């Protein structure tokens, strides 16, 4: 490092030509972070309110349509009185949304994906290593 404590002026081999080469073809190339977007042409107010509403809606959608994941997660909690309550709550919720048919989309998608995973290049009834059942010889 420089003895005078000044900033190093040279470039690492792996970085040398980046700044020279960068084409600056649009407003993103100057950004220090990927989350920096160019200013909008018209102001977009209430950032916090907008974000909170979006997060709340996403959580609601997931709570309604992904009850199987909530139920599965609850069974993985370390056993305790509190987790037993979480499990019974998750089971009750799974039942409520299940009666409304809301578990069907995620279960159907999971089934399609599973079928795609099971496709093989050749006729082979063999099971993939990560799918082997524990009691298989």
């Amino acid at each position: 490092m420089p003895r005078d404590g000044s900033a190093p002026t040279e470039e690492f081999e792996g970085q040398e030509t980046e700044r020279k080469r960068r084409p600056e073809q649009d407003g993103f190339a100057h950004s220090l972070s990927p989350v920096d977007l160019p200013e909008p042409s018209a102001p977009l107010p209430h950032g916090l309110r907008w974000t909170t509403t979006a997060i709340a809606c996403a959580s609601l959608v997931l709570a309604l349509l992904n009850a199987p994941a909530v139920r599965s997660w609850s069974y993985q909690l370390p056993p305790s009185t509190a987790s037993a309550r979480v499990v019974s709550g998750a089971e009750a919720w799974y039942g409520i949304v299940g009666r409304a048919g809301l578990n069907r989309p995620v279960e159907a998608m999971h089934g399609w994906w599973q079928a795609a995973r099971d496709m093989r290049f050749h006729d082979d009834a063999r099971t993939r290593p990560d799918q082997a059942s524990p009691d298989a010889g």
Partner: protein
Amino acid sequence: MLFPTLTFGIFFLLLYAGAWLLRGSNEWRKILLLVASWIFYGWWDTRFVLLLIVSGLLNWGIARLILAADGAPRLRKAWLGLGVAANLAILGFFKYYGFFMVQLEEMLHLLGWQRDLAIMQVVLPVGISFFTFQGMSYIIDVYRRQTAPAALLDMTLLMSFFPHLVAGPIVRASHLVPQFERVPKLTRGMAAMGISLIVWGLFKKAVIASELATGLVDPVFFDPSAHGSLDLIAAAYGYAVQIYCDFSAYSDMAMGIAALLGYRFPHNFNQPYRAASLQDFWRRWHISLSSWLRDYLYVSLGGSRHGLRRLCFSLTATMLLGGLWHGASWNFVIWGALHGSVLVAERLWREYKPRTWPPLPLWAGIFVTFHIVLLGWIFFRAATFDTATAFLSGIFGGGSPVSPTLVLTPMLLGLILLGMLFHFMPRFAIQRVGMRVRALPAPLIGAGAGLLILVVDAMRPEGVAPFIYYQF
């Protein structure tokens, strides 16, 4: 606590609410973020929270001592040396103690010493390489007068801030501490990018990286000799895609989570397999580490200031140490040596190539560079040197291309191709998505994000494997 889990989702929702409710007081907001970061870290092992606190205090204290010694250059340098040595001692003990003791024992056996050494089993704290590098960069920057000294709370939060704590990006004090000095403002653009990066990262990690790991890479690398060359080649390409999707997904989610809390992290990946030279690769892969190595190691070793020979030495040494940073294993040293020697070869080629020779076509540069990187990944992924050589002899040894237990499936092949395709998307595609997202109504974006997460959840294998870079 892993990002793509419901436990983390609940943790984040509570923290998001708390952090923005406390926006009236920046100090209390930062205290909340600090305590939350310790809870996040303590989820693995509470003992190491103390290490994190001690490391933060150490670097803050050393920076204060460097400042207090202003006007006494030797004393400043001595404090810096002590600080760097203390950080390296922490890293060395937890990460390299076992490795070096085993090497020492083997050497003593060769010299005729027959007794075994009593070697402690040291548990590796998650993310120790990242937070010690962060601490070192802070004291070096203070010494170089490139960053203003941080308050104790800011310094501790810088090192402990949970989005980057365990697997980067390595965020420097000059980038993050100024952001800690006031309550951040959350714009719709930041939030839109945050949501987009989280969903995108979730897809890359939970679907592509996890599926390739469990279905192809792990079983083939576990025992290469049991597989035909087709599976071995697919596993090598699969690992290249897996490690990119896994690590860049972590960076994307870290940036997205930080953005929703109001903070900006720097770029860490830029379509690395599109690189036309290894020099170009290191501008695109793990950018925060490569710039760290450049500023604090390569420059300190002499860099390009003392002629070509010294430059070649600095490059090789930087890459060897960069390899060793990933872990105490000869395979990482080989990986670093491969990258270092190819970087040196590229530099010499640029220096001595006859001017009349045409440059390599771009496509050929990309092809050759990618396959050098791929060769490095085989050593990087293999558990031992013998496994790596068995893997390579399985590919090049002329055995049967297809074994009776073919692991490659149409879906795994499709995921490898998809992961490669990401490198040929427009560079700022995700930012363009973010610009569209920020202009749409929040309920629509929330519902859309929820549905996309639902699709990802339906596609991913059971359970979530830790991110690859957690082990470093």
